[in-house]
């Protein structure tokens, strides 16, 4: 059942993306709203996918790469819905929907079988750790998207050629502000994820830290975002610099995440 809903979800995000592309070309708010409804529809299907997977597997659905990406996409959409209630940035969906679609398409190429979790990993720490990590990642994904939007809008203003997305993108100030907000939420979540991961590792393997590839890379990511936040807070990094940095940091985050998992398999190379 979860696979059926997985496809329905992907279809929703696909059509949302198409509608948003039409919005970007025509600038008609009606399309942005329609795209938004598509994303909501997708979110419902997505939630059913995850819940039914949870029941079928009898454990947190974040053990395989397929599950992880699905969960990551779900949290990103959840965050998008929260953000779009709080801030009226209609165009945001035009970036989030294709991102979620990309994650789901990647997930669809991966083995979808439910594999049992090694008993040593069975713990309440699993959902906590995974939830914190992916929520943090979702915030970083948003920071990256706001960074991309900032860079596009800045380009229009710097080149003094007003056309295309200039009309639908919000002000640089708001984009910079949202980029910053997302970083300030993402960073503590990532920190907590690393800490809970260490505790869980202690619980399962008897050591807090065993220098696995995943742990090394999450530490690198942590340092990158720490540097970015430090730059923003102390030396007045803002706008363009911060936007570029948050895009780059997210590329490292997503790249290492995908790469490690494709290479080793499983969220930490602990499966199979």
């Amino acid at each position, binding site marked *: 059942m979860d696979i059926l809903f997985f496809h329905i979800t992907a279809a929703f995000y696909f059509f949302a993306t198409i509608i948003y592309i039409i919005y970007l070309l025509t600038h008609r708010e009606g399309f942005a709203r329609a795209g938004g409804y598509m994303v909501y529809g997708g979110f419902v299907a997505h939630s059913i996918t995850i819940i039914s997977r949870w029941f079928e597997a009898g454990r947190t659905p974040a053990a395989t790469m397929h599950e992880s990406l699905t969960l990551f996409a779900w949290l990103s959409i959840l965050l998008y819905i929260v953000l779009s209630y709080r801030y009226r940035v209609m165009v945001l969906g035009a970036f989030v929907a294709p991102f979620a679609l990309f994650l789901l398409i990647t997930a669809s190429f991966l083995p979808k079988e439910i594999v049992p979790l090694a008993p040593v990993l069975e713990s309440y720490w699993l959902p906590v750790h995974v939830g914190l990590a992916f929520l943090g990642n979702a915030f970083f994904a948003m920071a990256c998207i706001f960074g991309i939007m900032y860079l596009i809008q800045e380009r229009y*203003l710097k080149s003094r050629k007003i*056309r295309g997305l200039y*009309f639908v993108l919000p002000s640089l100030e708001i984009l910079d502000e949202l980029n910053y907000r997302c970083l300030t939420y993402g960073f503590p979540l990532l920190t907590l994820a690393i800490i809970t991961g260490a505790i869980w590792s202690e619980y399962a393997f008897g050591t807090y830290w065993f220098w696995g590839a995943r742990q090394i890379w999450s530490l690198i990511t942590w340092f990158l975002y720490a540097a970015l936040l430090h730059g923003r807070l102390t030396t007045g990094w*803002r706008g363009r610099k911060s936007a570029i940095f948050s895009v780059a940091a997210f590329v490292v985050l997503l790249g290492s995440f995908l790469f490690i998992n494709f290479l080793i398999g499983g969220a930490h190379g602990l499966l199979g």
Partner: protein
Amino acid sequence: MNIVTVGLNHRTAPVEIREQFAFREEELPRALRRLVNHYNINEAVIISTCNRVEVIGVVHDMEKGVWEVKKFLSEYHDIPYDDIKDHLYVHAGEDCARHLFRVACGLDSMVMGEPQILGQVKDAYGMAVQSNTAGTVINKLFHKAFSVAKRVRTETRIGASSVSVSSVAVELAKKIFGELTGRTVMLIGAGEMAELSARSLLGAGVKEIIIANRTYERAVELAKEFRGRAIMFREFSHYLKYTDIVIASTGSPKFIIRPEDVAGVMKERKHCPMFFIDIAVPRNIDPLVNNIDNAYVFDIDDLQGVVEANLKERLKEAEQAELIVTEEIDGLYRWVRSLDVVPTIIALQQRLEGIRKAELERALSQLKNLSDRERKVLDAMTQAMVKKILHNPVTCIKQEAHSVEGDTFIEAAIKLFGLEEEEIIKKAREAGGN
């Protein structure tokens, strides 16, 4: 019931003609009443702006009504009809409604999509309501026009982007800073354009305005007007770090703001963005300033470029607005047609009821010894006959009222049953509360 527009606008008449036709606000009530005193004109509105003079009327007979309006325009303004007939346009029926909707949406304006016209149309309608020259049809037509204009504003972006240099400056500032409340503007030099832009920025919520001018007295004068702060011209660079938006318009032949100045200021400002508007020719701000992070420089040509881009955007939106107008016309016109139907049906029913009553009485006077019950049966029988005879024609007229040849059915009913046309018009007027 026919609606018609007779008028002229900036496309059909030069300003020399338009100014002769303009109605002053205070003379409108009298002019409106004079209009509806014509035999064929039931309701009327006069829209008179600097770009157009239009009479929207509800007339009984189209041809005669149009002629009466034309004659009124010529006689009222004391201009021979031959001098104006080439400038006048006439839109009747659906075209009249379409024209009014387009006018209200700003689609017929000189500057595409400008919003002032809607207010002017509302005032014109208000005047007609006050003067008692607006009835059912005008009420419906204008309220529809207002709702169409509102729909166009919300569903298209026709009015979203600015098409004058000073409002473009505000729009760009908003794309950089978001809300402008709490921002500071500095005027360096005080040309007319700079003043205009400053005024627009203040209107958009800018907090403080600093004015530097070579003649200090002028700066003080302007500072008073804008409740700003005048500074000595040579001091302006000290104030740059407090300034978010700079509007430069001095007659200086050299650049007065150079990249190295801005780079220094940027550090002090912790890289908060700065927006430089250079409307001086020759330019006051070195274009290289634009290469500094978080500094944005627009010169007068750039601003003009934005105006043109926005106008193009408006034209694109106008196509969408036209579709909305067409959609709404269909809805309205169904209603206008059905208006004639109701009095016709009532007249038809009354005519047959009259015949029935007369004939029934005649029959009863010959059948003197009928019981009450038998009389009632006869009464019910004749009533049922009339009802059944009328059923099909009435449904038919009601249905066909919405089709293109709706009028033909009404005319046929009037002729076939020998209905009084004048009666029907009177009834329609009463129904309209006119």
